[in-house]
C-alpha cells in the first residue's frame, strides 16, 4: 500500500511542479534569456537547416537546443507549451465534469424517459468518430473565436458521456438510500436533493474520474495539434512540435524527445496520481 502511495505522491509532486512551470513560464524562460518566438538563424547549420552542434544544439544559451529551420529556443517552446496543454486540459476536464455530473445525476435520479433518452444520446456520442468532428468544427468555426476556447469547448463537450455514466451508476445506488428517500418524501425538489444529498456523496468518484480524464484531454489537445488543427502557430504546443519532428526524427531526434518527454511526464503524473486517489477512496476498486 505504501508503495502505491509513494507513486501517487511522486505523481502529485510532478503535477505541482509542472503547474508551477505553466504559471511561471515567462519568468523561467526569461531566466534562460529566451522566448519561444525569436528566430536564431545563427544557431542553425546553414547546410542542412538543422541545429548546429551536437544533440540538437544544446548549449548554455539554448538549454534544450533549438528548433530546426527557425532556430527558436526549444526550452522556451516546451515551457510555454506547458501552459497551452494545462489550460486546455484542465478547462476541458472541468467542462466535461460539470456537464457529466449534471446529466448523469439527472438520468440516475429522475429515471424513466429522461434516463432512456440520456443513455441513448450518450451511446450516440460514444459511437461518434469525434476526432473527425473536432477537425470539422475547427474548420467551420469563424476565425473570430480564439482557437484555445474552441478546443476547450469541443474537447470538453465530447467528454461528458464517460463522466455521466459513472455519476449515473453512483446516483442509482444513492437513490435507494433512506436519506434520499426521506428528502423526497419531505417534498424536496430534484435540484435540492441533488445539491444537499447527492452532490456531497458524489465528490469522491467525481474527483477520481476528473483526475484520470485530464491526461486523456491533454493527449487529445496534443493529437489535434499533431493533426495540425489545434492551437495556431506560433503559440507553442507540444503536439505541433512532435508533429514537426517527424521530418527530423532521423537527423535531429532531440527535437522529438524534449516535447515528447514533457507530454509523457504530464500524462504519466496525472495517471499515477489518479490511480492513487482511486485506491485511497475505494481500495478494492478495479483499475480503469
Amino acid at each position: 500500500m505504501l508503495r502505491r502511495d509513494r507513486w501517487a505522491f511522486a505523481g502529485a509532486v510532478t503535477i505541482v511542479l509542472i503547474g508551477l512551470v505553466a504559471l511561471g513560464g515567462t519568468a523561467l524562460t526569461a531566466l534562460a534569456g529566451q522566448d519561444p518566438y525569436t528566430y536564431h538563424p545563427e544557431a542553425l547549420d546553414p547546410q542542412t537547416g538543422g541545429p548546429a552542434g551536437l544533440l540538437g544544439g544544446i548549449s548554455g544559451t539554448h538549454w534544450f537546443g533549438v528548433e530546426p529551420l527557425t532556430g527558436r529556443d526549444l526550452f522556451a517552446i516546451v515551457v510555454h507549451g506547458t501552459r497551452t496543454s494545462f489550460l486546455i486540459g484542465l478547462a476541458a476536464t472541468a467542462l466535461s465534469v460539470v456537464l457529466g455530473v449534471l446529466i448523469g445525476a439527472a438520468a440516475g435520479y429522475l429515471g424513466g424517459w429522461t434516463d432512456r433518452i440520456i443513455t441513448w444520446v450518450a451511446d450516440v456520442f460514444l459511437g461518434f468518430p469525434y476526432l473527425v468532428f473536432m477537425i470539422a468544427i475547427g474548420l467551420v468555426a469563424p476565425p473570430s473565436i480564439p482557437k484555445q476556447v474552441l478546443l476547450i469547448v469541443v474537447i470538453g463537450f465530447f467528454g461528458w458521456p464517460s463522466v455521466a455514466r459513472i455519476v449515473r451508476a453512483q446516483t442509482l445506488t444513492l437513490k435507494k438510500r433512506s436519506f434520499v428517500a426521506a428528502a423526497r418524501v419531505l417534498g424536496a425538489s430534484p435540484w435540492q436533493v441533488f445539491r444537499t444529498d447527492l452532490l456531497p456523496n458524489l465528490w469522491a468518484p467525481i474527483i477520481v474520474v476528473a483526475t484520470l480524464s485530464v491526461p486523456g484531454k491533454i493527449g487529445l489537445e496534443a493529437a489535434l495539434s499533431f493533426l495540425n488543427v489545434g492551437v495556431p502557430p506560433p503559440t507553442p504546443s507540444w503536439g505541433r512540435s512532435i508533429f514537426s519532428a517527424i521530418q527530423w526524427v532521423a537527423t535531429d531526434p532531440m527535437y522529438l524527445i524534449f516535447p515528447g518527454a514533457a507530454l509523457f511526464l504530464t500524462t504519466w503524473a496525472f495517471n499515477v496520481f489518479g490511480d492513487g486517489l482511486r485506491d485511497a477512496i475505494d481500495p478494492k476498486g478495479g483499475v480503469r
Partner: protein
Amino acid sequence: MTKLVATRLAGMLLVLLTVAFCTFVVFYLVPSDPAQLACGRPCTEQNLALAREFMGLDESWWQQFLDFLTGIFAGRTFGTGATAIHCAAPCFGYSFQQNTDVVTLIADRVPVTFSLAFGAAAIWLVFGVGLGVLAALRKDTPIDRITLAGSVAGVSAPVYLVGLLGILLFGFTLDVVPVGGYVAFAESPLDWAWRLILPWCVLAFAHAAFYVRLVRSSMLETLNEDFIRTARAKGVRESTVVGKHALRNVLLPVVTLVGIDLGGLLGGAVITESVFSLPGLGGLLIDAVHQRDLPLVLGCTLFAGFLVVVANTLVDLCYGVLDPRARLT
C-alpha cells in the same frame, strides 16, 4: 427473440441516422463550394449554375440529405444525358473531387486499416491478458511491479509518441524494421506482415497497457470469490481453476473493451496511419475533411459509426454466450 433483434436493429439505425445527420449539418455549414472547384476556368455564372445543378447543390439542405438517404437504397444519377454519372445502390455519395464513388474509395482503403487493427488486436490481447494474469498470480512480486509500472507508462504515452520513438529506435538507430509503406497481403504475405510489424507493436503497446490493468484487477477480485474457493476445495487443479473458472469471468470486461477499441480503430486509426504513412481509412477521412469533400466525409463517418455500432452489438451478443446471467433482456 425476433422482437429483440428488431429493437436492436432499429436502435442501430437510429444511431447511424443521427451520426449522418450531424455530420451533414456540420459540413453543410462549412463555407465552401464544391461547384466552384469543379467549375473550371473561365468560370462563368452559367457554368457555375450548371455545376451546382449537376451535383444537386441547388436544392435545399434537407432535400440534399434526403437525396443522400434515398441514394443508399435506390442509387443515384447525377446529371442527364451523355455526361451523367451513375452511382449504383448502395450509393453512399460520389466524390466529385476524385471522380469516384465513395464506396469504391472506402473499399480501396479498408484492407489497410483492417490489417492494422486486427493484427494489433491479436498482439495486444495475447500480451495484455497474459501479462495481466501473470501479474495477478504473482501479486506484489517484482514481476507484478514491473508490469504495473510498464502499464502506467503505456497508458500515459500517446500512440504517436510511441510510434515516432519506435521509428527512431528500430527504424533508424537499429535499422531492423521498415518504417512505413504498405504491401497488399495478396501480393506478398511476408512483406505485408514485415511492413506492418512496427505499427502493430506500437498500437498493441498502447492498448495492451489498459488490458493488463483491467485483467490484473479483475483476476484478483475473481480469485477471492466463493466459487473459486469451492473449486479449490473440490481439488480442482490450480491451472484449471485459473485458466477455466476464473478466466471466464475475467474475459467479460475484456470483451467489452475489445469491442470498443476495435470499433474505434476499424473506422480509421487516424494517428497511427499518419505516423507510419499507411494509406488507410483514417488518412482518407482526414484528407477529405481538409479538402472539404463533403460526400467522402459523410461516407467515411457513416462507415466508422457503423463499425462502432456493430462492434457494440457483437459485444452484447458475446456477453450472453460468456455469461448466461447477462442474457439480453
